[in-house]
């Protein structure tokens, strides 16, 4: 089981709810992913509009934990207010904290992130910070009260997979006791399996499933890959070697010449 703040879940996949072809496909993808946590957001509602209500009902019927985000926030003030409004709507202290610092890469503004994390923790929030693989920033986030860290492995929606596996490895080694979730940049199930093999506790993804040709099938593929990666990590994989090592023993081999 994976414990995130005071909640325990069996699934190590956190799934985003954006960009699906239809609400029905989103629902089916969540079911087949076996995810127990989904991310959601908030946007301006139009007068008389009921779209937010329909989505709210859809999520409620899925019976999963909800992790609201502050996506699109570029300042501490915006992120903090959005988090408070999300708590009002979704009635959870959980917040996936995003403070975006760069338009092209959607790289987090790590200075604003740490400041917002401190403010929100003081207000009773349980913060899931979307951060980089920078160790010093991660230390500051822990000091600010975060009990989970979510480093990216590549820019959001890029589908590149882990571009710096070494940094992720170091990050894991440096924070052995902190639940670590790779958030952003995953494109394929093999990417998810590879970070799970490094010992990451979970993976958060969205576009890789929503943008696939068959999102529910891809959701299931990710579920298998993440479970396989976790099992492999627990089984202790071999380290790569530079030279060949025969797998078949040579002792007792027949000599024909």
């Amino acid at each position, binding site marked *: 089981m994976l414990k995130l703040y005071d909640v325990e879940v069996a699934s190590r996949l956190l799934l985003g709810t*954006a960009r699906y072809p239809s609400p029905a496909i*989103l629902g089916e993808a969540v079911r087949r992913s076996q995810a127990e946590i989904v991310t959601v957001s908030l946007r*301006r*509602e139009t007068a008389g509009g009921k779209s937010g209500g329909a*989505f*709210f009902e859809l999520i409620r019927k899925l019976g999963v934990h909800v992790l609201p*985000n502050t996506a699109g926030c570029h300042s501490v003030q915006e992120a903090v207010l959005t988090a408070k409004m999300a708590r009002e*709507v979704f009635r959870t202290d959980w917040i996936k904290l995003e403070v975006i610092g760069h338009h092209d890469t959607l790289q987090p503004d790590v200075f604003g992130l740490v400041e917002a994390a401190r403010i929100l923790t003081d207000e009773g929030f349980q913060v899931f910070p979307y951060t980089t693989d920078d160790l010093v920033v991660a230390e500051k986030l822990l000091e600010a009260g975060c009990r989970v860290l979510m480093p990216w492995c590549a820019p959001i*929606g890029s589908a590149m997979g882990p571009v710096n596996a070494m940094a992720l490895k170091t990050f894991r080694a440096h924070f052995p006791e902190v639940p670590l979730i790779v958030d952003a940049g995953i494109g394929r199930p093999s990417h998810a399996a590879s970070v799970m093999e490094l010992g990451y506790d979970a993976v958060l993804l969205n576009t890789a499933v929503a943008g696939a040709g068959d999102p529910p099938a891809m959701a299931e593929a990710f579920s298998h890959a993440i479970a396989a990666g976790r099992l492999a990590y627990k089984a202790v994989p071999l380290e790569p070697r530079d030279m060949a090592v025969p797998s078949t023993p040579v002792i007792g081999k027949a000599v024909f010449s």
Partner: protein
Amino acid sequence: MTFIINGEEQQVAAATLADLLLALDYEGEWLATAVNGELVHREDRAGFKLGERDRIEILSPMQGG
């Protein structure tokens, strides 16, 4: 009075935040409101008096990653 509602200037006859939501047909337990950058809780809307050119944000759930 004139308000800035979700970024757009509008004239609405409303003394409180609850009046304004009613006048504009905003309804639902899933709405969150803020005035001038501060959250206004659901239960405080009826007693929250609005002023000229107050900036009002009305948000609802949507898909997110």
